[in-house]
């Protein structure tokens, strides 16, 4: 049924209107007593409209046009939303809804500038709507700049280290944007316009050199936002110093805009076959292989950097970078299974990463610190936050009961079926690293000895624990029945022009070994039930004792002895892989900075030269000599 609207406005216009209204209203009334709930309401409305649009798209509407048209200096800008855009839009509005719900309660009241946080969150949603529904390359670039600057506004509000991290982010984002600008200019040069269809038309007669530059510029430009390896240094500090709920939003969705744009440009516009055609002459290495290996390195290296972090937020954001590598790798396998796995991982990642970040900020809200060496034993004081974090880390590590496992399984399976062993081994090794670091996270915060000063801590308020638990619930439900999420992914996959993956509610049926999560999770829960039965029936009733009634080699434990093992949690591993962290990328980045400084000094010196007349004479003679020689420059 076409979405009936009061007047000729399409649902996309309605969504844009809601987002714009939200930005203005929340900036004005953010800190009012009911400001938080107003925000949740507005974002909820946006989510509802998005879901309605989804139903529309599922009912066969190819794309939802927007009546927003702009012709500037001979360029027509139009905005339409197709399946791919809608998939990411669903994540954006969902993430905004949950983070505003989190901010609505006690957490929002404690913040100094809740008004700015609400405003920037709504602004981010508005800019993302514009980016996701861009109708042509120029619209894409404008949307891209809007999103980058909205994220910058969100990051800089915390002050202190956040400004430094935001400034560094802005430099990377702008470099990426300029690469993208160059790319659309190259397209304009070849195709004579910025439209998507003009680009597709001009593709066949583009020279391979131009195709390579286009591929490099698109991958580089969007890779910066996705924090692919050489350009990943900015993301961890930038996303962790942003205050609470906005950090959750950024982590869950903001980096995925890069993936959306990468899919749009490389897969939808250029297409897998042309990319496959692009080979390095002698070696037979395709362009997608290079990007796949960059994704593989992005999967492994940041995960093992996350392992060494001592700040909970940094650990999670470093994992965000690693998980981005999984999504890209899944999509680059180019088979229906791989692409579905990659896209499903985007959805799954958004759910469990948001739950994790919200949980960590709930801990910060109560204890005041996120330093893993200052916490411990909070399971008795904050059980609900513990449950949310536990389900989150099971998802992040990709273990069965949660949805993270399904998408990772599909990616491993796609890599094995397409006979790419080294990439699949990299994926497995990435998962192993994740398991180690997530256990360190949950152990150092919730398990082990409870500190004396944390003895009176209360559970985080309902307004904070409820969103977390709902997100973790979504993770479990889509883990139990991945078919639900896969049907959402189908929209995006269809829009990408890749064949759909046949799937049922429980998972995937393949000749080379299928997965039915209904059985896997069902049996697991049943078996744990049997375990519980055995536990309660056999053996006497349990007697719960306190943490100091512990074996310590005959020693009497007491509150003033700090015996919680949390600092340097994996000493053996640190001794082996410690020397492997040589920080090449950090030194490279520092080198770039120094290069800019030195060349700045050079030109600064040129302008301060006192003896200008002599200097001009020399230049004039040179000019004449050149002119006299009739050497034509250029032409």
């Amino acid at each position: 049924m076409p979405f009936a609207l009061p007047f000729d406005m399409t649902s996309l216009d309605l969504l844009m209107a809601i987002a714009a209204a939200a930005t203005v209203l929340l900036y004005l009334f953010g800190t009012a007593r009911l400001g938080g709930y107003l925000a949740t309401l507005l974002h909820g409305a946006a989510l509802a409209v998005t879901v309605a649009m989804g139903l529309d798209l599922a009912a066969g509407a190819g794309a939802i046009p927007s009546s927003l048209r702009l012709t500037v200096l001979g360029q027509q800008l139009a905005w339409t939303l197709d399946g791919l855009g809608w998939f990411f839009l669903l994540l954006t509005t969902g993430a905004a809804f949950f983070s505003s719900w989190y901010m609505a309660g006690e957490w929002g009241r404690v913040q100094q500038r809740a008004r700015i946080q609400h405003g920037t969150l709504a602004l981010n949603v508005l800019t993302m709507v514009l980016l996701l529904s861009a109708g042509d390359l120029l619209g894409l670039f404008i949307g891209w700049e809007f999103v980058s600057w909205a994220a910058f506004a969100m990051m800089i509000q915390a002050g202190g280290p956040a400004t430094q991290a935001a400034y560094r982010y802005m430099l990377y984002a702008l470099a990426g944007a300029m690469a993208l600008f160059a790319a659309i200019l190259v397209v304009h040069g070849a195709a004579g316009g910025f439209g998507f269809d003009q680009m597709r038309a001009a593709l066949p007669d583009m020279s391979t050199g131009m195709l390579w530059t286009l591929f490099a510029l698109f991958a580089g430009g969007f890779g910066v936002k996705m924090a692919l390896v050489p350009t990943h240094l900015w993301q961890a500090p930038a996303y962790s110093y942003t205050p609470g709920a906005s950090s959750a939003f950024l982590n869950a969705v903001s980096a995925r805009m890069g993936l959306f744009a990468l899919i749009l440009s490389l897969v939808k516009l250029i297409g897998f076959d042309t990319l496959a055609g692009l080979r390095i002459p002698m070696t037979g290495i395709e362009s997608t292989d290079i990007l796949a290996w960059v994704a593989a390195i992005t999967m492994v290296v940041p995960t093992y950097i996350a392992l060494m972090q001592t700040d909970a937020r940094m650990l999670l954001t470093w994992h965000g970078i690693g998980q981005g590598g999984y999504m890209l790798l899944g999509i680059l396998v180019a088979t229906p299974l791989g692409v579905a796995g990659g896209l499903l991982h985007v959805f799954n990642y958004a759910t469990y990463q948001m739950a994790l970040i919200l949980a960590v900020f709930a801990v910060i809200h109560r204890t005041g610190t996120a330093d893993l060496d200052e916490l411990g034993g909070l399971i008795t004081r904050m059980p609900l936050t513990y449950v949310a974090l536990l389900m989150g880390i099971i998802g992040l590590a990709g273990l069965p009961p949660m949805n993270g496992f399904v998408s990772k399984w599909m990616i491993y399976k796609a890599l094995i079926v397409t006979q790419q062993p080294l990439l699949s081994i990299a994926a497995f090794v990435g998962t192993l690293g994740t398991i180690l670091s997530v256990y360190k996270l949950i152990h150092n915060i919730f398990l082990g000895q409870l500190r004396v000063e944390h003895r009176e801590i209360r559970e985080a308020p309902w307004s904070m624990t409820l969103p977390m638990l709902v997100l973790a619930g979504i993770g479990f439900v889509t883990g139990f029945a991945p078919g639900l999420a896969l049907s959402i992914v189908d929209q995006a996959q269809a829009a990408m022009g890749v064949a759909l993956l046949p799937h049922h509610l429980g998972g995937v049926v393949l000749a080379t070994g299928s997965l039915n999560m209904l059985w896997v999770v069902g049996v697991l829960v049943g078996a744990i039930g049997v375990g519980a039965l055995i536990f309660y029936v056999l053996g006497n009733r349990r007697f719960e004792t306190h943490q100091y009634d512990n074996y310590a080699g005959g020693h009497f434990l007491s509150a003033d002895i700090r015996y919680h093992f949390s600092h340097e949690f994996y000493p053996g591993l640190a001794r082996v892989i410690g020397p492997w962290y040589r920080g090449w990328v950090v030194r490279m980045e520092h080198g770039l900075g120094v290069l800019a400084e030195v060349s700045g000094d050079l030109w600064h010196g040129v302008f301060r030269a006192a003896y200008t007349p002599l200097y001009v004479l020399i230049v004039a003679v040179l000019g004449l000599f050149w002119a006299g020689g009739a050497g034509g420059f250029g032409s």
Partner: protein
Amino acid sequence: MTLTAHHVVLPVALPLLVAFLLPLVGRLSDGLARLLAQLTTLAVAVIALLLWPAASDGGALVSAMGGFAAPIGIVFYADKLALMFVVALAVGLLLFRPRREHDSTKVQTLWLLLLAGGSGLVLSGDLFNIFVFYEITAVATYGLGASAHTGAGYGASLRYLLLSALGSAFALLGIALVYAAAGTLNLADLSQLAGERLTGPMGLTAFVLMVLGFGVKAELFPVNTWVPEVYTAAPTRVTAVLAGVVSKLAMVVILRLLVLLFQDPAALGFLLLLGAIGVAAGELAAFRSRDLHRTFAYSSIAQLGLMAVAFSIPGHAGVLAGIAVALHHLVVKPAFFVLADRWRGEIAGLTGAGRTSPLAAGLFVLLSLSIIGIPPLPGFWAKLMLFKAAIDAGGAGNLTAVAIILAATVIEAAYLFRVVGILYGTAPAGRPPLRFTLGELAPGLLLGAVLIAATVSVAPLGDGLTAMAADSADAAAYASRVLPGGN
């Protein structure tokens, strides 16, 4: 009352007349002299505006001095482009009239001389006439540059005088070469003869000399070493006008030369080279500088380099891009200098200034975003025009220029947002808060409002500019309007 072609000369003649009257009036009372100067500036602005409808329908107003015919006669050619810049100059001078402590009748006379020279530079259709008005503006700039009565001011102006004199010598040599080759100095006439007379090494040498000559004021690469010193030492309001408007007038002259006289690619390539190096040099030096004035001076060098790159692209697309960048810079740079007036000295000393005067900091962010070229602000559309023109023109030189400009944008964003970071930092307790009075900030806010208005009405503005660019890039139309019967 409608103004005819004969009134074209008024914007030049009136200020000259009043400029020489001022010392006499000044003897009676300073207030009166200042009022008279401002009235004449206003009059010039009104006249230029009134000329606008006449120019727009006929394409341009041509008035030959004393009725002499082409080869000898001095012609004034007022098309929409020229009139726009005259209006901009007049309004700029009105908006940024010198402050109480720097003001005196002598400064007012220089102010009017600058107005006369500037409008003459843009309006005149004769090469030597352009040189004369160029000298007048140069002299006015020396005087105004030193009007801050500081040692640094005198030194900077002296060095600028030396450089400018050398430049003028080159320009004169170039004009002489052109006269020797073509026998006439009337631009329209020359544009007819350029085809066979001004090609080859002789034409090219003339072009190089003239570009280096006029380049001094247009802040082109080799000859713009005076810019940082003068802009820092001169009173900020003078710098605002110099950087904002006057440097563009010289660039328009170079545009005229390119469009009318020198169409061959060697000349365009030379200007492209200067422009590209100018952009790179400007941005990198700005990245290094620690003082806000000096940063904006280098930034204006870079923007002028952008204009040079734009004009070096043949066809009306290039001219359109150049004009768009020029207009955008004309609005943004003076506003920057208004901010720099209060936030003087080391940038590091400004920590926390954003918190004490949020309006100024907000303005700074808006202006930075526009000059970097972030959509939807006009800066972005100007750069987009430039890049589109360069890509459509093709050629290795243009592509490298585009690459350099893209890289320069990142550096530009780096140093501008470094300042933003410092502005919003937490101020150390001891420092007194730098607070803006509304009076000081008014011109800046006005220009900010103009910028936002331009953002909103970017489509109609774009069409207007396209028409103007098409007209001013058309050498044949120029000649047909100036030469009767167009021989």
